[in-house]
């Protein structure tokens, strides 16, 4: 059995090819693009909502993409336990679709942030993080103008209590502080999962850090965790 990835292409997605290239050419997985107007997920085992500026990010980031025809089967897929990753704009779409709680605000600095950041894994016991070596701080790039995660107190309590904060922005040695928070996200949150543990949203781009030619390959841990989790 092999694992098949589906990368959704919205008008304005611009990391769809990065995801496709890393998964197919670098990691050798089976990958297909899924057009936003389609309504079939083509038997994919994992769906990726990629980064970009879907529908120009008009109104609010991800607000219009969430109503694309493909999102109906994607939401059903996620609700029935299918693995779904939203990266950057994909994360924003997951929030708008209500698959993950909270909202994204403009970066506190008001600047578009495009740089490598350090991530500390907060929960190693998820389908997305099992292969990440214990206590290893990951180096993954971010590129966004609205990645300032915000949620009300009750939601945050729930995220903490149920170990749903998967990644936090930290220093290279794993300290969680304001200095190493690139966008003002509450509690330095960089990625969260849903209650069932099958939907991950993260602002950093693991698909941009898979190819050894580009330096670090920390993104591979996430995709490999998922694949091994499905195969086992």
């Amino acid at each position, binding site marked *: 059995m092999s694992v098949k990835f589906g990368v959704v292409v919205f008008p304005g997605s611009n990391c769809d090819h990065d995801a496709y290239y890393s998964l197919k050419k670098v990691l050798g997985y089976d990958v297909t693009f899924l057009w936003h107007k389609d309504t079939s997920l083509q038997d994919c085992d994992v769906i990726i909502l990629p980064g970009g500026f879907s529908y120009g990010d008009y*109104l609010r980031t991800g607000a219009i993409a969430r109503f694309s025809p493909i999102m109906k089967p994607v939401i059903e897929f996620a609700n029935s336990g299918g693995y779904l990753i939203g990266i950057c704009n994909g994360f924003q779409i997951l929030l*708008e679709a209500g698959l993950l709680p909270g909202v994204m*605000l403009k970066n506190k600095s008001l600047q578009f942030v495009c740089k490598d950041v350090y991530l500390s894994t907060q929960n190693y016991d998820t389908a997305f993080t099992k292969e990440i070596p214990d206590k290893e701080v990951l180096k993954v790039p971010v590129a966004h103008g609205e990645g300032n995660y*915000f949620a009300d107190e009750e939601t945050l309590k729930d995220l903490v209590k149920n170990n749903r904060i998967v990644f936090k922005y930290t220093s290279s040695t794993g300290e969680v502080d304001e200095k190493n928070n690139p966008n003002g996200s509450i509690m330095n949150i960089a990625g969260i999962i849903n209650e069932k543990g099958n939907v991950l949203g993260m602002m950093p781009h693991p698909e941009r850090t898979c190819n050894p030619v580009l330096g670090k390959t920390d993104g591979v841990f996430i995709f490999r965790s998922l694949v091994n989790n499905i195969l086992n």
Partner: protein
Amino acid sequence: MYKAKVLIRRRSSILDPQGKAVEKGAQLLGLNNIANTRIDKYIEFTVDASEETAAKEEVTTYCSKLLANPIMEDFEFELEKI
């Protein structure tokens, strides 16, 4: 037919960095009495409905499902018969 005028406001508990940045511009202009600048959204459109109740219902759905995000925004609107 009705014309809808919708105002979408971010809750005051939510930081508005855009408003803050614009306010810095006011200070650069020498306007020192300006404070609490908030940037919100004003949207207008027409609704093809003969009854105000039907128009109101459709606008409410549009606002609550798409135009505003109820987690961080509130909306209000006016309908004008045209």
